[in-house]
């Protein structure tokens, strides 16, 4: 079962309170997603660290139940 879009948003918002998440269904199949995440928590972190913080929201679902998630991280200005 692929992950639903609203569940993806909820998972990220739970892991990173206050984050803004814009989710795009890349292929129109509820299975390939792009998330643009804007969060204060990213400040001062490297790109790798920022992406790991987003991946951490999904635990071991990443790469399994959540098949394809393109991630862009943004530090709010």
């Amino acid at each position, binding site marked *: 079962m692929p992950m639903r879009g609203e569940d993806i948003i909820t998972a990220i918002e739970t892991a990173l309170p206050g984050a803004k998440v814009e989710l795009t269904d890349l292929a129109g199949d509820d299975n390939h997603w792009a998330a643009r995440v804007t969060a204060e928590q990213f400040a001062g972190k490297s*790109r*790798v660290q920022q*992406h790991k913080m987003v991946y951490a929201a999904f635990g071991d679902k990443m790469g399994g139940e959540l098949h*394809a998630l*393109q991630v862009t991280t943004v530090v709010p200005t």
Partner: protein
Amino acid sequence: MADTNEKIASLVGDNDVVLFMKGTPLFPQCGFSSRAVAILDHCGVQYESVDVLQDMEIRQGIKAYSDWPTIPQLYIKGEFVGGSDIMMEMFEAGELKQLLDESGAAKA
């Protein structure tokens, strides 16, 4: 597991640029791997590619090695750089080219 870690360490240690991917540069088996290949090709650099679909131990081991849950993964000079999203961001910012130039990686 220890063997897999050693194998990965020697792959990323012996090659300036290594891409762990699904499929091969000619026949990528996943959109993200395909994007990673396109970026490296565009940078005009020689790189070693490892098809994780051919080796389950590496496929799992590489995720633990870098503490990164997805494939593809790019390593330059033994350092984990990121997945395809980070590669794209760095490419667009000119940072990837700079990092590759500094690494002394051979031109393709």
